[in-house]
């Protein structure tokens, strides 16, 4: 009997998953609740039912729920990282300056331990992005850190708006221009990639409209072109652009291009010179996702400031702080706290940079990013105020399910590769200097042209 249960277990688990997203019921008692949208509430309970926040108040009573005592602890919305490359097997399809046809959501890897490590830093949602090898990179995927699921589809935040990666400057110039002697070799070339792709997408749409409006069936159907389909969806406002950018002149360039083609959904990523064009960004309605204090890892990123987030915020640009790294993602709350040293942002302004603001940039602000009734039960619990350098995340909850607990076992890996070399050493974390994740899968292109 036990044997048959064991055999059926994966099947039963699957049925559970089929019957909708796995969600849980939790009552968090007596915490200091940082709501982001409604101030800080002392000695407050938060009830999550079926994965959604249903009640916030004092002395809540509820049966059949897991109760978590958060006395003396801080309860904040799950942290959101608007720029990461975790949880995906492929980052760059670097074969063309325009790869709008690919989607990193097709190569989700729910087993990569970096997801669990991000949870251990209170991060519940991240924007798994295509890399920056191409001017028009692939489509990205907003994922929820549902550590433990084996179905990659379960990692996707279903219903999150589609997003796509664009990239300006050195990376696309280096990969395609220097590497292969094709456009773009210069920043002018990068601009032309965008203009050409949008213009072609208009022609493409017109061709299909002509075919679809000709009921006699006499016309030959046009070639189906996935690249053009995606570009057309950007023109239709169905996809938010997230653009890797550094220099102010290029940021203005892209806004001009988008204006010419009537596209307005854009979030600039890195945007280290964003402080120079903050009013222009605000006027366009563009968003900015920045590092707290990380620059000088390549020529175009030397002119920068740790006041960037503050200047952008004070100019009315919806700004977030991201990781772009599997190491920084573990302490984004530290990164947010730096804006208090550099720019005196308030607690709430600083925490918005890693909660509600990235949610807005990903188009999921009605579901996550704050502790409000009706929002999804994504919570991070800290032993100290999350902006304190002494804060340590204690528990991270996604959709009402505890996905990280500081008391978890040492080895939380799910799928063990029986042939991998095992070691108790922690691998060196990668960053822009020791190997750019943004350019993962690209090096095969360089080895050819020394």
């Amino acid at each position, binding site marked *: 009997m036990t044997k048959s249960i064991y*055999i059926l277990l*994966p*099947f039963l688990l*699957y*049925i559970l998953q*089929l019957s909708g997203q796995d969600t849980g019921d939790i009552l968090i008692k007596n915490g200091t609740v940082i709501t982001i949208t409604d101030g800080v509430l002392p000695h407050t309970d938060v009830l999550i039912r079926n994965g959604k926040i249903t009640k916030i108040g004092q002395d809540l009573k509820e049966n059949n729920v897991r109760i978590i005592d958060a006395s003396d602890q801080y309860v904040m919305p799950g942290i959101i990282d608007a720029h990461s490359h975790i949880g995906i*097997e*492929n980052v*760059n*399809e*670097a*074969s*063309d*300056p*325009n*790869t709008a*046809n*690919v*989607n*990193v959501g*097709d*190569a*989700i*890897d*729910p*087993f990569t331990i970096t997801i669990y490590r991000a949870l251990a830093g209170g991060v519940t949602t991240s924007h798994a992005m295509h890399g920056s090898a191409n001017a028009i990179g*692939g489509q990205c995927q907003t994922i929820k850190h549902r550590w433990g699921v*084996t*179905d*990659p*589809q379960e990692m996707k935040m279903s219903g999150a708006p589609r997003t796509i990666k664009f990239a300006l400057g050195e990376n696309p110039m280096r990969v395609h221009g220097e590497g*292969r002697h*094709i456009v773009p070799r210069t920043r002018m070339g990068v601009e032309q990639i965008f203009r050409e792709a949008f213009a072609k997408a208009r022609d493409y749409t017109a061709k299909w409209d002509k075919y679809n409006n000709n009921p006699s*069936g*006499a016309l*030959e*159907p046009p*070639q*189906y*072109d*996935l690249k053009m389909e995606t570009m057309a969806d950007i023109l239709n406002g169905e996809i938010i652009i997230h653009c890797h950018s550094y220099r102010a002149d290029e940021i203005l360039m892209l806004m001009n291009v988008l204006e010419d083609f009537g596209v307005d959904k854009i979030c600039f990523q890195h945007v280290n010179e964003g402080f120079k064009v903050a009013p222009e960004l605000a006027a366009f309605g563009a968003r900015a996702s920045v590092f707290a204090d990380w620059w000088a890892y390549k020529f175009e990123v030397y002119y920068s400031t740790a006041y960037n987030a503050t200047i952008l915020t004070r100019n009315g640009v919806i700004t977030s702080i991201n990781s772009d790294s599997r190491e920084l993602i573990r302490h984004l709350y530290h990164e947010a706290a730096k804006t208090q040293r550099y720019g005196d942002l308030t607690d709430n302004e600083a925490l918005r940079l890693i909660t509600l603001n990235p949610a807005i940039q990903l188009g999921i602000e009605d579901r996550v990013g704050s502790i409000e009734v009706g929002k999804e039960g994504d919570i991070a619990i800290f032993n100290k105020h999350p902006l304190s350098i002494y804060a340590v995340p204690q528990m991270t909850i996604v959709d009402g399910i505890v996905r990280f607990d500081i008391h978890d076992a*040492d*080895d939380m*890996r799910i*799928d*063990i*590769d*029986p*042939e991998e070399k*095992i*070691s*108790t050493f922690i691998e060196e974390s990668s960053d822009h200097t020791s190997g750019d994740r943004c350019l993962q*899968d690209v090096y*095969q*292109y360089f080895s*050819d042209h020394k």
Partner: protein
Amino acid sequence: MSIILLYWISSISGQDLPSVSDAYFFKGAIVTTQPNASPQVLDILVREGLIKAIGVGLTPPVDAHIIKVDSLYIYPGFIAAASHIGVPKPKPNTETPRVKRPGYPPNHIAGITPEQTIEKTYSAKEGSIKQYRKLGFTMAHVMPYGKMLPGQTSVISLNGKDFNQAVITENFGQYAQLSGARRMFPSTKIGVIAKWRELYRNATLTKKHTQAYRSNPQGKRRPNPDEATAALINVVEHKQPVFFHTEKHLDLQRALQLQKELGFHMVATETMQGVMSISKAKIQGVPILISLKLPKEVKSSKDSLKISAADKNLLKRKQASISEYEKEGMEITQENQAGGFSLLKVKPDNIYKNIRRMIKSGMSDQNALAQLTTEPAKLLKIDRITGTIAKGKIANLVVSTKPIFEEKTKIKMVMVDGHIHKYETKEKKKKSSEDVDIAGDWTYTVEVPGMEVGGTIKITKADEGYNLAITNSAMPGQTHEVSNITTDKNGSMSYAYDINMDGITLNLQTEITFDKDTFEGTVSLPDFGTFPMTGSKVETPE
């Protein structure tokens, strides 16, 4: 003269030659006619390549060769549900072809050749045909080598002078992998999946336009799809299933997602981690071909005191993971979701060993046998002509010395299309490495298709085992040294060394078993294949 005569006689009685009569009478073997039948003593009459009669106490026709098989075991000939048998492994391209626009390479350079057929690459002389036949395989479902869409598959008999004689079903399915091209589109899995969507969509549009054109061509452009799109119309129309190479769980999930999206018929192929996707596979009607490749067993170290507690836990988890792979056979066959064993990745020498590991982990003998016979026959729609031993079916039989999955079982004969192949099954004497002194000079030959490579091995005693000095006719003047190699209790040794050919380093992995003054075994070259190797001791005066 008498020597010539003797030679002539011995060559007619030799193996693999046509006999005077094509009737064979297997008398009194312990026959398992199909996986769910219990073995019983039966006679089998074979004529014209077909099973003519099967029963108790049959009378042999006068012209039939009587094959004495009492106390031997007979099974239906095995079918490889997925393999590369009969197709020479292409030499790896060291130079990546340059294309002008890497985003738009020609299909054939990017590994997109769904129009390709097995007929074009099949070779009746391919060593793998003999090699797998010796293991009891009589038919094989063959996939071409390649990348994203290497081409169409065919079912062949492991018999015949050429493709036309060997072929059972031509262009049965499409073979697909999530392998990208190098330095061009699609170079990643996300690229391959995007390309799939585009190809499939265009094949669908072409099909639609072709139908419209056929019903009324007037005023319409003649359909003129490229080769790849045209070849995929059979997939769109569900005339060819897609054999999707999905070893690991995540790749299987990706292929299943694509299948769900596009709706083609799919067979999960070479699957090593299917259990986590079994319900999805069931719902989507996707059979799973279980890979016979298993991860290497990892033994706990003897001096466990020296390992840290953390490393001990890591080792424990690794062993638990390996046992999950071993249980795949049991779990997928019990769910009735298996369509046979896939042989694309397993080393031939490990086939029976790995089946035994799966059986030890809970798969029934009956289910194991079904994966070699009835299940692939059903999947490949050849169950009316093969898969069981029954009157009217093709005379494909395996004769073994003991029940087929027992450890010491040897295959004594294999009949394919009524042609009999006999094998030596001398019980190897048990001996320790001490018993045979292998030190001395040896010569060896390796059968590489199209050429014979040979050389010498000088074996000298070392502190621990032996030192080897190896020469190779392909590289005159070079000697490769391998030190401290030991033989195991069966007289087998394995060693590996690197050779450098035209700037490419190749790792030669050799496994040989000594028997007095001879040895036999294999040489494997990663990415090339495995080739039989034989050797003998050079007589030296005492």
